[in-house]
């Protein structure tokens, strides 16, 4: 559905995108993760036909973005990270204008607009002026706008940015509905746990380069090579425990917990070796209260992969 080959964008001597390769199948929900200025919005602008790449090719549903931008515009629904609205239009007029802009006949628009407003939970605001809507409502209206021509691909740049928790949850629910409808979605966000929940694939971009790509589980696995383990012991045995773990192979960066009743350390080893380590500690009469592997979430992955980016 989306095929990006060697995409590069340079602004003078600054390289915003550096030889990006990415292929997404139909119906995939792809989360684009990266720090500010990493190249997410540049990629989206090129896909949305708003910016020309320095080199490389992008095909959406087999259509070349550079050669046939008008055809691509019919395939995509784009929601930028910052956008304005026509304040003097009512919500339904706003959608009607964009519907007309995509050449949808008036009678079809009349049927379509109530459905879209319902999808984004704005049916009760259909006759409200856009400037009277809250930020979350404007975001949802803009999402409805990007869906007006029933695009196959949705390109959503930070759709939940600046929203309060309730509005974020509402936005996430709508995106889940769109996923069920089979849309191919490219979404960037800083709210990483939300991406992990709804995305089939994640791409981590840093300094214009795609440094990791795969399913959420795959990316998390990349960091699993070095696990972080927390062992809690009886307070009186803390020094004994430190001595024991210091002597074991594949263990590094041992730190005592602030509470003084345990330690954390980095460990490289298989699940079986991890079980054996615990058994040895128990055999040595170390009073282990808990032995816990720290579960890496997407936020940790992002921080780990992009560390030292600045």
């Amino acid at each position: 559905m989306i095929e990006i080959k060697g995409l590069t964008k340079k602004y003078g001597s600054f390289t915003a995108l550096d030889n990006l390769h990415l292929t997404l199948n139909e119906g995939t929900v792809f989360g684009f993760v990266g720090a500010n200025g990493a190249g997410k919005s540049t990629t989206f602008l090129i896909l949305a036909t708003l910016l020309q790449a320095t080199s490389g090719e992008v095909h959406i549903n087999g259509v070349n973005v550079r050669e046939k931008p008008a055809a691509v515009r019919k395939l995509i629904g784009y929601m930028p990270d910052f956008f304005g609205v026509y304040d003097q239009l009512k919500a339904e007029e706003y959608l009607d204008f964009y519907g007309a802009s995509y050449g949808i006949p008036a009678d079809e628009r009349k049927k379509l607009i109530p459905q879209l407003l319902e999808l984004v939970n704005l049916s009760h605001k259909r006759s409200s002026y856009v400037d009277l809507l809250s930020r979350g409502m404007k975001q949802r209206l803009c999402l409805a706008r990007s869906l007006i021509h029933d695009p196959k691909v949705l390109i959503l740049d930070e759709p939940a940015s600046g929203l309060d928790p309730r509005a974020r949850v509402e936005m996430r629910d709508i995106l889940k509905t769109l996923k069920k409808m089979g849309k191919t979605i490219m979404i960037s966000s800083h709210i990483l746990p939300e991406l992990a929940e709804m995305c089939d694939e994640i791409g981590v971009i840093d300094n214009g380069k795609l440094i990791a790509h795969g399913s959420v589980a795959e990316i998390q696995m990349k960091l699993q090579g070095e696990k972080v383990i927390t062992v809690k012991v009886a307070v009186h045995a803390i020094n004994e425990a430190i001595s024991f773990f210091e002597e074991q192979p594949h263990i590094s960066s041992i730190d005592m917990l602030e509470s003084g009743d345990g330690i954390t350390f980095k460990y490289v080893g298989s699940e079986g070796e991890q079980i054996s380590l615990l058994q040895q500690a128990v055999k040595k009469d170390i009073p282990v209260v808990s032995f816990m592997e720290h579960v890496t979430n997407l936020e940790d992955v992002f921080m780990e992969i992009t560390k030292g980016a600045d």
Partner: protein
Amino acid sequence: MKWMGTNPVLFKELKLRFRSFKSFNGMLFFLLAMCIFVFGYIFLTVTISGHSYFRPSESFVLFAFLSFIQLGLVLFTAPGLTAGAISSEREKQTLPILLTTSQSSFQIISGKLMSSVAFLLFLIIAGMPVYSLVFLFGGISPWDFIKIFLFLFVILLAFGSMGVMFSTLIRKTVVSMIATYGTMLFLSVVTGFLFIITMRMKEMSQMGTMVTPSYFGHFLASINPGVLFASFLSPNVFGIVEELTHVDFPIWIGFLIFYGFLTVVSIGIAVRKLRVNTNKYR
């Protein structure tokens, strides 16, 4: 002309423009000013002259003044209405979304231009009943009327297109306004001044020698809206220009060619530059 009937930008702009209180106020004050001027002029002329009637020659003066008011309205309002057409969309961050729709660059530009032209035409047409009061008193032919309106339409289209072009090329509306008003002042004031200087210099340099035609002077007279406008009100202006420049070519043809060219080039540039980042590899 299918695009005219189905241009979403045109209808959106008209809706926004006519929904705004500013437009209502503008029209109200324009019509009020015209009414005050017309009835004040008639009242003063009748009371000062001591007659109880209004002569056709006085009616013509009124027509001339009203026509200049209309010209002023077009010259000063057209740039104001169009110089922010695209740049304001850019400033309000609505342009990227507009550019990802199926509309062509020409549809967007023509929609923006036509909505501004339509609003100004609406103002002019709204002033017609007051303007046409001069018919009651004679001295004006319907052809005089039509000529003035055709002239205003050409000027409106040309300066409107120029405003849209600057608005597309320049990111900030304020700078675009300055550029559009600057060009308007150059074409309507500076060219007149240059015409006078050129003619005076030519006259001085050709003292006692054979008189040669001044094509540049004729060009300046042709592109100055004031000169052609004056010639509608006083046909001997044609003769004066011909006598000064020694070029036997109707200035209205030069005017139409120049402003027609300006309109087409301005719209062409605006259409080409609207999607500047997507036109070529950089």
